[in-house]
């Protein structure tokens, strides 16, 4: 049974230095095993929101709780996948993935087993002994995903993880992520500026207002999406995408005025 208040943000505000208010009076609740995507105009603070949940920043107002416990700092219970540069360049793929397990003190044999399992999960067999600089962007993100999943976080945070990749690779990785999520049903908080990606992946889509960021609206995706699907041919998909796109566009225009 899922707990509706798995992740809770109450009246969260974030002010940086000289009056830059990134977030203001933000309320959001996420249930367990949800895949929540967050979209919004540039600068709306969606990444800031993610970093607050991750514990890398401290809110200037409000509270964040995960499973009822306040979030006080970073930790392995909140895994994060960044857009790039989150792999340790001096470690091989294998060592990067096993890093979290080493920090948790998992014994060697167990570690090797888990690492092998995750290498298979992200389809990187044969690349275990390569260094990050030898991998393509897409492969690096697969490693980033694997190295985060091994820690079995309570919630998976993703900051525009496919933003730096080309359209094809992005699509492939989106399908893979969906596949992994369906297998494991983790709780995911996924930030993106790409509305199509938000609809394709999210079971609930959060639209943020322009700065100072607030939750503008939250829309549940009532239909299922399958791998390799042609989104254009799906009228429900197109309708939802259009609806969200308009919502975001209004926010963008609000700034211009």
């Amino acid at each position, binding site marked *: 049974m899922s707990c509706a208040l798995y992740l809770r943000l109450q009246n969260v505000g974030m002010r940086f230095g000289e009056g830059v208010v990134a977030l203001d009076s933000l309320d959001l609740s996420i249930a367990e095993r949800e895949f929540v995507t967050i979209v919004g105009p540039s600068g709306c603070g969606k990444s800031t929101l993610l970093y607050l949940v991750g514990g*890398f920043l401290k809110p200037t107002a409000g509270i964040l709780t995960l499973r009822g416990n306040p979030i006080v700092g970073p*930790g392995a219970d909140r895994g*994060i996948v*960044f857009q790039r540069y989150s792999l*340790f360049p001096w470690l091989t793929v294998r060592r990067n993935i096993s890093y979290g397990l080493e*920090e948790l003190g998992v014994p060697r044999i167990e570690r090797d087993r888990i690492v092998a399992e995750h290498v298979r999960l992200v389809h990187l067999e044969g690349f275990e002994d390569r*260094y990050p*600089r030898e991998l393509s962007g897409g492969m690096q993100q697969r490693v980033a995903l694997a*190295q985060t999943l091994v*820690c079995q976080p309570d919630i998976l945070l993703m900051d525009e993880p496919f933003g730096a990749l080309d359209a094809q690779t992005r699509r492939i990785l989106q399908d893979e992520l969906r596949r992994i999520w369906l297998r494991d049903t983790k709780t995911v908080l996924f930030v993106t500026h790409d509305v199509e990606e938000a609809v394709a992946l999210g079971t609930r889509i959060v639209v943020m207002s322009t700065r100072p960021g607030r939750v503008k609206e939250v829309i549940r995706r009532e239909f299922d999406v399958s791998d390799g699907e042609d989104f254009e041919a799906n009228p429900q998909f197109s309708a939802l995408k259009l609806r969200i796109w308009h919502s975001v566009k209004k926010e963008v225009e609000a700034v211009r005025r």
Partner: protein
Amino acid sequence: MKIVPLLLVVMLWQAASMSGLLPAAVLPSFFAVVVALLSLVKSGQIFPHTAASFLRAGTGLLIGTVCGTAVGLAMARFRPVQRAVEPILLSIYPVPKPALIPLFMVWLGIGDLSKITVIALSCLVPVMVSAFNGARSVDEILLWSARARGTTEYRLWWRVVLPAALPQVATGVRAAIAIALIVMVSSEFISAEHGLGYLIFTYGGVGADNAMMAVVLYLTAIGFLIDRAYVAGLRRLMAWHAFAH
């Protein structure tokens, strides 16, 4: 390919010597120098001096590197350490380190200790600066990524900052090696009983130019090989880094 210009210079040298343009009293011919070097090698004379020199330089370099890295990292980690050390560092900077040799000989005697200390001090500075800069320029995302995978603040420095700063430290060490050699030779000119600098100085003093040049040539070759070996070793050890040397 790269060796041809060097060969050309050597041939020019030899030709000048043989033609009488360059009298032996001014500069011995290249062949004479090579012969002298070979005899030094054959007799085994040169090896204890080589060992003495490089033992001093190596020890000083090691101490300087380890201390420099530790202090540099500490400076990056603790603001008070940076505030305390940085001004002192800037004041030490304009002091030509070989000029400290006689002072340290007064304090620590004329033996190896004073030389090693000055070498260590000289090497400490560039490595410290590199370590400090390297530690400070570690991408924030790497630190966040590590923390989100259960790394405590304490372990962060050992598992993330140090490896991330290593390429920059390695560059600092390369400069430190050159400095170590300079201070090593200087110290042996000023006062020594063994060492390559001692040989050069003594041979020069008695007018044994062939032998003196032989040791200079020998030192040049070793210096070159050490630098090359260091860069090659770096490329292998840090294969993960795109060293575009």
